[in-house]
């Protein structure tokens, strides 16, 4: 098992906290993260996340601001790697940038994009149901 530049293992453990940064206020309600926040990017078919929990908060937001770039950073969805693997998706370390990781294995069906989206949405819903909303 190798160590990454961040000092983290290259293997993401099930109980590891992960963060999906939220750049739009419409990605969450007053208390919950909406499923769409977890859907994959159609270009690389992955969802970009960071290997960080709710604390230390200052470090989390530093990481988030770096990920958001010129976009606003409203908050983060915090969840365990286990919540992703429970729906048969993968979590893989993907540095650089430091602490970066991706959710992989999303169902893909070029022949039927709507069915593909429906399948992805169900999985995203299940992950969202296990996530905590942390507002900045």
């Amino acid at each position, binding site marked *: 098992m190798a160590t990454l530049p961040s000092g983290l293992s290259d293997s993401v453990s099930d109980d590891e906290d992960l963060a999906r940064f939220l750049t739009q206020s419409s990605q969450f309600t007053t208390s919950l993260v909406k*499923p769409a926040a977890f859907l994959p990017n159609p270009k690389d078919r992955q969802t970009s996340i960071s290997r960080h929990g709710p604390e230390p908060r200052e470090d989390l937001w530093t990481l988030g601001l770096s990920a958001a770039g010129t976009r606003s950073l409203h908050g983060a969805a915090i969840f365990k790697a286990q919540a992703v693997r429970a729906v048969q998706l993968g979590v893989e370390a993907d540095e650089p940038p430091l602490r970066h990781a991706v959710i992989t294995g999303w169902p893909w069906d070029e022949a039927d994009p709507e069915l593909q989206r429906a399948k992805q949405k169900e999985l995203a819903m299940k992950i969202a149901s296990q996530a905590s909303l942390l507002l900045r």
Partner: protein
Amino acid sequence: MPEPVSTLGFYFLGYVALSNYARGGSAISGEAIAARNAASALMESVERSQALFGDKAAAISRLRALAIECGQENWDADGAAMIDPRAIFNAEAIVRALPIGVPLPEFAPEPDGSVSLDWIQSRTRQFSLSVGRSHRLAYAWLDGTDSGHGVATFAGSIIPPRIIEGIFAIAKNGDAPIGTI
């Protein structure tokens, strides 16, 4: 589409006249009473329509605001496509077509340029509809430990019954009410 100001003014004047008539006057004949009752019924209908339209208009405004916020590529700083104007058009048609009594959804952008219409009662009771460029709608739902997904076709005026049933199944017995019309 917003009403032209002149049309709204005409409606307003008609509304005022109807309202005054419905509240009563000095006429006492049977015909006058019948006419007044009819005016009252019409007033109630107009006011109910305005209340319904007001909620839908507010929802459509939120949808359009979302289109502006996510009207550029990479709105999520992760390479998302800009929200497709045709997705907004289709989503507006769905909001307008929602039957009376169906809760109004919340909206969220999706990274492929589609719009998500979400009925969220709680963490584990949700129904979500994905609206993109086509008239085929992807949907998924979560109800406790039960979940599912599917695709339905929206022809532009009538919401597919299975979607309405799905929304109601999630909305009933929920503990976090969503804007009912």
